[in-house]
């Protein structure tokens, strides 16, 4: 379980996060949603320690991450897997080397054991046999899947995904969403996905936290999201013609 308490963050006097609190449940897909500039990615980066919040705390199973020293943070980070918006694959390495990299750094496994794990992860994301390709040779969707394979290589307890569907076609987006959902359920990870894609919200949003202008406006599940009277949330949810038409119809 990950808890955030009263997170504030500003950049050069511009307040981006204004006292956000919430609890992300274990073994389910938690979504942070909101419009562009609402502070979703900043919140995610504060949670994983890429940004230091101005105040507030992030608790991983009760351990205060924000108060930890460098060595303690490294230990928590070994339990974290992250899928980046642009996949962030190391472009000088092959797919195999990318996935094997954390195993090389932190385990004493033999080469064949590591290779077995790499092949398992690639199979899990339906990319068997793509070991020797370089990131430049992969499509956007394949890069995301390799990113997921690398993120799960170390069996993480917490999985973070930053805009996993950005730049993907609707069909590939659904494949990625389903993959995230399956991995969460299979391994019982605490998964946190930052997105503004309503398909993802309706498809995999077990717990949703809605941000607007740096503040938490709503929290709940995808079953409840279409039935609120919060204007800001309704503006976000029914912004697309499809969702608006669906609402009018039913």
């Amino acid at each position, binding site marked *: 379980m990950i808890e955030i308490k009263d997170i504030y963050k500003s950049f050069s006097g511009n307040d981006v996060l204004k006292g956000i609190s919430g609890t992300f449940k274990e073994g389910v897909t938690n979504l942070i949603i909101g419009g562009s500039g609402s502070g979703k990615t900043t919140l995610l980066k504060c949670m994983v320690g890429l940004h230091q919040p101005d105040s507030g705390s992030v608790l991983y199973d009760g351990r205060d991450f924000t108060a930890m020293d460098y060595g303690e943070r490294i230990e928590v*980070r070994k339990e974290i*897997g992250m899928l*980046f918006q642009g996949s962030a694959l190391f472009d000088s390495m092959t797919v195999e080397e990318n996935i094997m990299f*954390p195993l*090389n750094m*932190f385990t004493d496994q033999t080469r064949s054991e590591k290779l077995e794990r790499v092949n398992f992860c690639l199979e899990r994301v339906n990319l068997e046999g793509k070991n020797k390709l370089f990131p430049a040779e992969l499509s956007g969707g394949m890069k995301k899947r390799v990113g997921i394979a690398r993120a799960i290589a170390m069996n993480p307890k917490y999985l973070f995904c930053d805009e996993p569907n950005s730049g993907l076609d609707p069909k590939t987006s659904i494949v990625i969403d389903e993959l995230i959902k399956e991995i969460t359920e299979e391994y019982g990870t605490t998964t946190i996905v930052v997105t503004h894609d309503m398909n993802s919200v309706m498809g995999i949003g077990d717990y949703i936290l809605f941000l607007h202008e740096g503040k938490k406006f709503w929290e709940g599940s995808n079953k409840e999201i279409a039935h609120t009277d919060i204007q800001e949330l309704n503006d976000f949810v029914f912004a697309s013609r499809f969702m608006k038409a669906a609402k009018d119809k039913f």
Partner: protein
Amino acid sequence: MNFTNFGRYILLLKSVFRRPEKLKIYFKEIAKQMDYVGVGSLGLIAIISTFIGAVMTLQIAFQLVSDFIPKTIIGSVNRDSSILELSPTISAIVLAGKIGSAISSEIGSMRVTEQIDALEIMGINAPGYLILPKIISGITMVPMLVICSMFLSIAGGYIGGSISGAVTPNEYIQGITTDFNPYTIVVALVKAFVFGFIITSVPAYEGFYVRGGALEVSQASTRAVVISCISILVCDYLVTQLLL
């Protein structure tokens, strides 16, 4: 570099020299970087050093108009200039352009494509993993390149003098073997060590803190080369003042 940047540079270096997670991986990276910095730059340094040595001989001969000065002095002056100043400094400035810009754009591109964030999320000390192998290769390979440059510069002087007839081979050989002070080699190697550190650490700093996109990465590369060159010249003066 203003004081804020200098402070951040020092803090980055502190992170660079943290204990590595796994030495084996670092050794592999160091070997890769040594190959790139050392072997990859040898051709360029060889061409530049040979021609500079040849041109130096011609210019010294041109300036020595007095019949009272023996021609052997051409060899002596060329030797001392090459060892003390030209080989370390010119090599370092050339390497700052070649290696410095490459380091800055490599690390800068990794920053803007979130590859550095990915390293940090995995629990890896990104400054250590990315910068330490480069610094170690710089402080070991640049002195070796400078040693090659010294030999080639002096050999270039021999070739230039012989072809042009500015000095006979015998006079040149006599010049370079007369009154040789081995301490000049020590001074040159100290300079090369310092320059090797600057050439790798300053561009790494510029790349590591890039914010933005492709434009900012290219600007950081330019800044890295300019700051490295200025730092090399300042340190050149300081080391010379301290050691001679």
